[in-house]
């Protein structure tokens, strides 16, 4: 019984850490324009729209976070092997991983923006100075939370995978969940704030991203502030639910019928999410209604 209570406590903690990690990851990637919306940041100068948006896409979010989390966890593991306190070891490992992220961010911005020189897009040194540190701070939160939850899974819950491998797996899953949930909100709702609400961006408008703020030119910190409220929160909930429910069903139900209990609960949860998804889809169809008449659309 004590084991189960301990397991539930650790599960709740990992879920909370995952929620913070998901939220920070999405905000970091939005400030740096790392996800798919980056295509528009790269396209805009080619269409004649010069901007001051940070552009640091090194790779897709999942492999980037897989690398950074595995790096942080590997270094933390090495520090722990040197008898350094676990919390201090994780902090030190993550700080070093964040420096790698900062180097990637800087070279990516310089390289990507310099490639747009023929379209007249300048490289802004003040953007590197002000934005890089902000993305590094968010990346630190995301990496630290992910490595910490992996340490809990490995050390307290006894998962067989070593810490760096767990961090690679959950880093990739973090990037996948964060980019899947957060990208549309940044790509459509923020970059194309000048387009109609409640409709996708017409393909003909591609590249015409919003470049001006209330005062002066829009910068990426504004984007992080805006997207954090819905995109960041949704990404956090998404990754938090994934980690929490995956561990929760294992801790509580794996002992029932030699593993079949956890499988049954997993199937049940998939069905619950299917019903919720269907409800959301039908709700949108009923409340928002069609864009055109059915016959006209079919034609």
């Amino acid at each position, binding site marked *: 019984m004590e084991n189960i209570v301990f397991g539930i406590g650790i599960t709740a903690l990992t879920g909370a850490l995952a929620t913070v990690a998901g939220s920070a990851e999405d905000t970091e990637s939005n400030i740096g324009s790392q996800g798919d919306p980056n295509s528009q940041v790269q396209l805009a100068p080619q269409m004649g729209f010069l901007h001051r948006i940070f552009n640091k896409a090194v790779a897709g979010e999942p492999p980037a976070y897989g690398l950074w989390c595995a790096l942080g966890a590997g270094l933390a593991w090495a520090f722990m092997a040197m008898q350094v306190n676990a919390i201090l070891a994780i902090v030190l490992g993550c700080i070093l991983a964040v420096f790698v992220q900062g180097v990637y961010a800087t070279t990516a911005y310089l390289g990507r923006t310099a490639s747009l020189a023929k379209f007249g897009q300048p490289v802004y040194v003040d953007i590197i100075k002000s934005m890089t540190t902000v993305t590094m701070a968010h990346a630190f939160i995301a990496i630290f939370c992910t490595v910490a939850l992996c340490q809990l899974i490995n050390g307290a819950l006894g998962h067989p995978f070593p810490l760096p491998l767990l961090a690679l797996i959950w880093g990739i899953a973090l990037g996948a969940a964060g980019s899947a949930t957060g990208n549309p909100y940044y790509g459509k709702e923020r970059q194309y704030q000048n387009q109609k609400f409640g*409709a996708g961006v017409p393909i003909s408008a591609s590249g015409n991203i919003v470049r001006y703020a209330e005062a002066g030119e829009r910068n990426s910190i504004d984007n992080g502030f805006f997207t954090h409220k819905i995109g960041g929160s949704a990404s956090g909930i998404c990754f938090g639910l994934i980690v929490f429910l995956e561990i929760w069903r294992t801790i509580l139900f794996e002992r029932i019928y030699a593993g079949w209990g956890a499988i049954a609960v997993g199937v049940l949860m998939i069905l619950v999410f299917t019903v919720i998804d269907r409800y959301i889809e039908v709700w949108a169809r009923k409340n928002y209604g069609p864009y055109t008449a059915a016959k006209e659309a079919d034609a």
Partner: protein
Amino acid sequence: MSAVAAKPQAGGAMNPTAMAVGVVLLIIILGACYYVSPNLGLTALIGVIVGGVLIGFGTHFVPVGGAPAAMGQAPGIATGVAMLAAGAGLAGLFGGAWAAPLGTTVATITGGIGGGLMMAITCMMVNFVYVYGMGIPAASGKVLHDPITGDSQAEFKSQGTEGHGLPFVSFVGGVIGGILAGAGGTLIYLALLDLYKATFPTLMSATHAQVLPVAVSVAGMFAVAMFLVNAVLTAYNITGTIEGPHDPKFKRWPRAIVASAVASALCGFVAILIVAI
């Protein structure tokens, strides 16, 4: 024939010669494995190939819209095919590896359910953001009616777009893709773990308990690597984006099955060689 004169095939045509070459390569690799390690090695290689094929097939179900989906210009999840499949499958591998002591069947199904659960949560949250965050309903660009619910799609596409969000058939496709990918990844891990657990003690002159962490780590790394090999291979087959099982690109899966089988066999053979030589 020049590039101009060539008929457009939309990248979907099957090439029987290439498929036959793939099958021959597969048989050659299986034969080489039988020569090197007839019992344990061959069993592990078959497990790896089946796992790889499951990943390759499962990735076709995952609805991925890439960059256009991030602007609400196309349906699907706004990220890369390989990346999303890897995220789901590796979340499944995490659960499957945890359940490994409970036997191959339970562990593989647990891995599958883990991948399916990850995709179910992600797909639900994608629709949540589209509907409640951006006020956009789900609409498919490839079919007039959702094959499962029968909902009409065309009038819910906003002007100048290919559709947006995840219609119900795409959601179901995502969950099926996650289940197959998670089960495939776990199967590869279990196949290699059994092999390494049996061979490492002799190879390293150590006890079973001493080699277990090494066996788990090496098998886990190979499973992650082979997962990415198969997911990326499939991403090439579907050329970037796919809506799910109702998308015409889905019909390309036989080509990916052969490619995944050959690639998995080759990677698996290398993983077996480290203990067989």
